[in-house]
Every structure is written in structure tokens, then in C-alpha cells.
């Protein structure tokens, strides 16, 4: 392990231990934060509960659909915009400000349009996640060295194989960071929507536990969601590392 990794592990472990001690000694009341060990036990209990898996499945399904549409659609849109500079110049200030818009305000409208159920949540999450992917795709494609594009032209690659074999791999680091953001934003969209108005899903369960002062369950569920997202991101990160290493970077 590198010194930085050791330092990081020590600091994080120290923080968790400090929190544990503060909670155990009562310096932090359990009405605020429950001890990390209690969170862990609660999480294990939740994982044992079939009811949890139903809510979990509902949320993950919505996130997976939203994420897939956002990633594919975002990439295609981003690619198209880099090909049409005037359109891009017109749209980019709006894309840059996109994440300041309170998307959740449109959730009730989506319910009216798409009916109660999972559809408005999925649409909300897709809208939320897609622009991160568009921005990342454009940033990635912008940074493809011109020499690679020229090489592709010399080899008379078709547009599709130029994209697949040259542009996509060259832009991969940025596109992957967009992918990670798209995952996070899909989760935010779905879970925030479930917080506000929903009868099932992890977001609803967290809000329900909060309303009932069931801190143990609430922290356990939050821990599970965060662990899931972090594991996913780490996997993408490890894949990215391996890919860069293979290219000798």
C-alpha cells in the first residue's frame, strides 16, 4: 500500500472509531446519530428481511432503467452536439445551468402526465442523469487528440468504426466519469422522488423510518444505499485503472 492509502485508511478508521466512541459514551445522542456498529447490525438485519428486498428491487429496477436510457441517450446526444457546433453553442449555457433547475418541481407534473407508478420516477431520474452524460461525452470527445482523428481518416475507417475504435477509447476516461455521475444522479432522482411521493422503494422506506423516529433502520438503509453506489463506482474506477494501465498510461 502506498503511504497515501495508509494515511487515508488510518484517518477513515479513526473517524469511524471516534464516532463509535462518541455514540457509545452518549456524547452524541442516539436521536441524532446511532453508533456505526448499530448501523451495521441494522443493515444486516435489513438484508435478512424479504420486505426490504422487495423495496430494494423496485428502486434498483427504476435506477437501472433510468441509468441505461441516460447513458445511451446522453452519449448519442453529446456526440451529435460535438458534430454540430452551432447547435452546441446555443445549447451549452443551458446545459451548464441544467443542474441548478429544481427538477423535483416537475415531478408532480410528470405524475399527471404518466400516471401514478414507476414511470414518472424513471422519467425524472433519466432527465436528471442524462445531462451529466452529455456534458462528459462532449468533454471527452473534445479532448481526443486531432492526430488520432487524422490517423482514422488515413486508414479510411467508416464513421462507425472510427467512433468505436478511435474516438470512444480515446474519450473513455471522461465518459466513464460521466457514467459514474449518471449512476449517482439516477439514484438521486429515484430516491428523492420516492421521498416526496411514493408508496414503495428504498427512498420511501428511509422517509418512513425517519417519520417514525426509527433511526436504527434509517441509518441502516442509508448505509446500504451508499455502500451499493460506492461499490459500483469503485468497480468502474478499477476497470478504468486497468484500461489505462494496459495503454501504458
Amino acid at each position, binding site marked *: 500500500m502506498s503511504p*497515501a492509502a495508509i494515511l487515508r485508511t488510518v484517518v477513515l478508521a479513526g473517524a469511524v472509531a471516534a464516532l463509535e466512541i462518541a455514540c457509545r459514551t452518549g456524547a452524541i445522542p442516539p436521536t441524532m446519530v446511532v453508533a456505526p456498529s448499530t448501523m451495521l447490525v441494522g443493515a444486516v438485519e435489513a438484508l435478512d428481511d424479504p420486505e426490504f428486498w422487495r423495496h430494494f428491487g423496485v428502486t434498483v429496477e427504476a435506477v437501472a432503467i433510468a441509468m441505461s436510457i441516460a447513458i445511451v441517450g446522453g452519449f448519442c446526444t453529446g456526440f451529435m452536439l460535438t458534430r454540430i457546433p452551432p447547435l452546441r453553442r446555443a445549447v451549452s*449555457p*443551458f446545459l451548464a445551468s441544467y443542474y*441548478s433547475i*429544481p427538477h423535483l418541481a416537475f415531478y*408532480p407534473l410528470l405524475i399527471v402526465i404518466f400516471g401514478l407508478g414507476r414511470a414518472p420516477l424513471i422519467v425524472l431520474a433519466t432527465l436528471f442523469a442524462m445531462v451529466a452524460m452529455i456534458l462528459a461525452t462532449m468533454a471527452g470527445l473534445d479532448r481526443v487528440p486531432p492526430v488520432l482523428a487524422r490517423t482514422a481518416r488515413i486508414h479510411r475507417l467508416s464513421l462507425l468504426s472510427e467512433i468505436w475504435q478511435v474516438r470512444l477509447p480515446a474519450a473513455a476516461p471522461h465518459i466513464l466519469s460521466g457514467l459514474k455521475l449518471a449512476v449517482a444522479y439516477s439514484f*438521486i432522482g429515484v430516491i428523492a422522488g420516492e421521498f416526496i411521493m411514493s408508496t414503495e422503494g428504498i427512498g420511501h422506506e*428511509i422517509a418512513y423510518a425517519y417519520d417514525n423516529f426509527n433511526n436504527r433502520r434509517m441509518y441502516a438503509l442509508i448505509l446500504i444505499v*451508499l455502500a451499493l453506489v460506492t461499490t459500483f463506482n469503485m468497480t468502474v474506477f478499477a476497470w478504468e485503472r486497468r484500461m489505462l494501465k494496459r495503454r501504458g498510461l
Partner: protein
Amino acid sequence: MTVAAEPAAPGARPLTAALGALRGPALVTLAVLVMWQLAHELAGDVAITAPAPTLAHLVEMIGQARFLPHLAETAMAFGQALLIAWMGGVLIGLCLGGSRLAGEAAEPVLVTLYSIPKVTLYPVILLLFGLGMQAKVAFGAFHGIIPVALFTLNAVRNIPAVQIRTARALRLSPAQRARHVLLPAALPEVFAGLRLGFSLTLLGSMLGELFASQRGLGFLLMKAIDLHDVETILAIAVLISVFAVAANMGLLAIDRRLRRGAAPAGHGA
């Protein structure tokens, strides 16, 4: 600053350039309005009210005395959160970026924090800060501070080593080093972080107002959702969106100037 040293173009050119720059956004605004009107025609008043009455409703609402305290509350929460996020983020970034080991140790943690769905943590923030202004400010600042810190950290790390060596040769104190070497060299990238932090802080404070608050635009939104007052929902959404887009365009313009100034700055200003 190199920004001020730009040659003054002959009178008419900046105006046409400005008009040209405005044409794209104007067209997009028009397209949004047309799409809005079309959606209204398709879905009807129950789902989406038409643009003109909604905007009229917005103007009327802003004129009402009872609307202003809500606006002030939101502006207050957002302003405080932004201040904390910007100053705190730059400070954290400078500290971590100043030491190679600290930067390397902290970056993955910051990246992880940046990419987790922070909305899940809102109940925790509510428990820690109680219902009210503090929770909103904390949640907004929590959203914004991480990207600002990350960008500042990277900016400081990418400063050419020769500048840092010069600072050491001149025996600058840490404060002087930050003020005269690190900050100017890192400014363009730090500013990109500030811009991102602005958007995310706004998002965070809006989210904070939506879930648990008794005042502010977010509260008005939730009340309108409960009453199914589509006109008010849209009017507030438009108000916030216009503010966000306008502020962001302003920041983008400054961003571009800083970058343009940064390129030939080798020989200093």
C-alpha cells in the same frame, strides 16, 4: 490582470459579437417556449399551464407582499450556503493541495463523496441541524463544498513546479505563498470549481427546502404540489430556472475571460 489588457476593439465589433453570442441562447429560449406551448396543447391545463398565463401569474406573485419573505428566506439560505461552500471549498483545496501526501490521501475520499447520492443523507442532516434554516444551509453547502475543494485541489497540484520552487527560493510564508503564487496560478481552474459549486449549492438548498421547511420557495412549491396548483409550480420553477441560467451564464462569461487571460500570461501582467 491580463483581462483588463485586452485591446479595445473598434466600437461596433463588441456589439455585434455580443448580439451574435446572444442569438443562440435566444433561439433556445424560443424553442423552450414553443415546446412548452406544445406540451400544454397536448396535456391540457391539468398538467401544464400555457406559458403566457404562467408568466403573468409569476409577475403577479412577485408583486404580492406575502411572497417576498419566502423569496428572502430562500435567498438567505442559498447565500449563506454558497459563502460556506466557496470559502470552505477553496480553503480545504488549498490545504490538501499544498501537501502531496494529504492530496493523494484525500482525493479518492472527496471523489467518493462527490458521487454518492447526497439526497439519501438529508434525514441525517435534519437530525443533526434540526428543522429550519440551518439544515437548508448545511445541505446546500454540503453539495457545493466538495466540487470546489476537488477542483481547487487539482488546480493547486497542477501548478508548475518551477513557480513553487521560486516561492521557496524567495522564502515566502505559507500565507504569502497561497496569496501570491498558488491562488493566481490556480485561479482559472478554481473558478470552474466555483461555478460547479454554485449550481450544486443551489440544487442542495432547493432540495433542502422541498423536504422539510415552513418558509421559502421550496415550501411554496410543496404547498402548490399538495394543492395541485400547476400554475404556481411552474411559475416558481421558471423563476428559479431563470435565476440559475442567468447566473450561470454570467459565471461562464467570467470563466472564459479568465481562461483567455491565462493562456498568454507567461510573462505576467
